[in-house]
């Protein structure tokens, strides 16, 4: 007969999350076409911006970029990918919801948060692989970090932490929004303007005042600036900012997003699929 413990302990929740993360990773590895395209896309993005924009804007870059757009672009595009990579969570959870898989999970004796933790963890791991690949291609194209290997590692860690925070935003989206098409539209509608009106591709100083005010105070700029500080040193930051200060701003965003979106996602999960 069943010897299942009724109340899920933290250990059991972690074990369930790990089982589900493995399931999600296995399921995506067996779709090589999707995997390949979703890996190539961010790299193509980077190449496009590097060669289309690169020549025209080198004069506008701060000294720490060494006059080379690739040095400016790579930290920015890692911040951008952190958001795009996180959108996979919305699609994955929505698939599970429409196919009835979430119903089955919700009828099993396990913690509600395990399904979400398993999904976000798997998506983070996938994003980590792609992000490292993107960084490697950037290095091949001439990106040189100037703040030591530790700065580089801290930057990658920060980008992934931001990505993980964003997976909880998209987790909520995936359960609240009904169709894949709507999710697609929502992701593009929010992520594209947000990454363009930021310091991801260009310094914000040339934007009109009102836009600049927005661009300088939104999370993607905060992350991109922090990554630049960590990877290129204080010289890459707008005047008056320090690397440590910028990293703190980024961490505050990550903490804030997580604190708000984890409970929201868990609540949406409880109500999902009805």
């Amino acid at each position, binding site marked *: 007969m069943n010897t299942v413990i009724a109340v899920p302990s933290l250990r059991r929740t972690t074990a369930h999350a790990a*089982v589900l993360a493995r399931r999600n990773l*296995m399921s995506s590895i067996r779709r090589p076409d999707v995997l390949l395209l979703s890996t190539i896309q961010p790299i193509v993005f980077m190449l496009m911006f590097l060669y289309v924009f690169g020549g025209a804007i080198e004069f506008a870059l701060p000294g720490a970029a060494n006059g080379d757009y690739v040095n400016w672009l790579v930290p920015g595009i890692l911040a951008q990918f952190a958001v795009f990579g996180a959108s996979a969570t919305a699609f994955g959870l929505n698939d599970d919801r429409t196919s009835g898989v979430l119903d*089955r999970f919700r009828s*099993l004796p396990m913690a509600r948060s395990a399904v979400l933790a398993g999904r976000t963890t798997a998506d983070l791991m996938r994003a980590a692989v792609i992000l490292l690949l993107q960084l490697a291609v950037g290095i091949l194209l001439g990106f040189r970090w100037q703040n030591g290997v530790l700065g580089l590692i801290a930057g990658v860690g920060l980008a992934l932490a931001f990505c993980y925070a964003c997976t909880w935003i998209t987790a909520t989206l995936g359960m609240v929004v009904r169709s894949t098409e709507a999710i697609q539209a929502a992701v593009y509608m929010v992520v594209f303007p947000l990454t363009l009106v930021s310091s991801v591709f260009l310094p914000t100083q040339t934007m009109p005042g009102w836009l600049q005010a927005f661009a300088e105070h939104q999370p993607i700029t905060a992350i991109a600036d922090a990554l630049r500080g960590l990877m290129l040193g204080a010289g890459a930051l707008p005047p008056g900012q320090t690397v440590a200060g910028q990293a703190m701003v980024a961490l505050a965003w990550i903490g804030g997003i997580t604190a708000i979106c984890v409970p929201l996602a868990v609540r949406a999960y409880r109500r999902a699929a009805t």
Partner: protein
Amino acid sequence: MAEPIIEVDGLVKVFRGNVRALDGLSLQVEQGIVYGLLGPNGAGKTTLIRVLTTLLAADAGSASVAGIDLNADPQAVRSRIGLAGQFAAVDDYLTGRENVELVGRLYGFSRRDARQRAATVLERIGMLDVADRQVKTYSGGMRRRIDLAASLVGSPQVLFLDEPTTGIDPASRRSLWELIRHLLDDGTTIVLTTQYLDEADQLADRIAVIDHGRLVSEGTTADLKNRVGGTVLDLSVSQADRPNALAVLEEAVVGGVTVDPGRDTIVLPASDGVTTLYDVLGRLDRARITPTDVALHRPTLDDVFLALTGSVPGNEAAAGAAVGAGTDRETGADR
């Protein structure tokens, strides 16, 4: 009756738009039987299953499964039930075995136990030879089987099957029926929903007929059939002849003569089959009434409803559609 394994008392669930999917439903299910919930689309069957499997909280009333109150300890209920929903809830890119093992792990079994249980269940369900193929290569019937295997891997005391054979071919349907009947061997109680009388007839020991979130009738399949009559006679006559015809028929058959307004047809139980048919035609002939159409057939779900409620579910299009629109998966499935 022994201590019931499921007790439902006055359940109410109201969805947005004031749709009462469950409207004070009460019933009891004895242990170790197949219990069929029969009703048209939007009757509230799926809502009831979703409440009993802890997916949905009722607005009023109470229910217990395996002696545990649903509100008091839903986790304990979850460890004692299995659910196979309207869609085969399996991952296309995992193998059948991996899907079943996954659910075993989520019930809380160790890797080794989950593996062993999966193998046992897969063998029982006749899927061992194809268990290591990805689910995307399976037919519809095979997907249902794997889904059923996943719902069995935790050795549930109560197994809930929501329209287990909807959308699969007749041959797979029959073999699924057989499979479900065999599951009773180890004392599992099965609750299943269906829109088809023949399915309820084939599978269920007792049937609850549900409409508009209420219990319309309850009993063994034999009880239910007796109420309808083993065979049903449909008769059409011209408008002019109808009053006379009805009078003649009321005399011939004691009780149960109804008019189905949707089809403009007189429906009556023909307990003696062909003999009843001859008798009825003879009486009509003596009254100089010639039917425009006659059909003798086994009772359908419509006939059950007509006999039990005096109306066919489809004829209350407005009310039926309103209930349908609010109910859960039956319309949530807009794919």
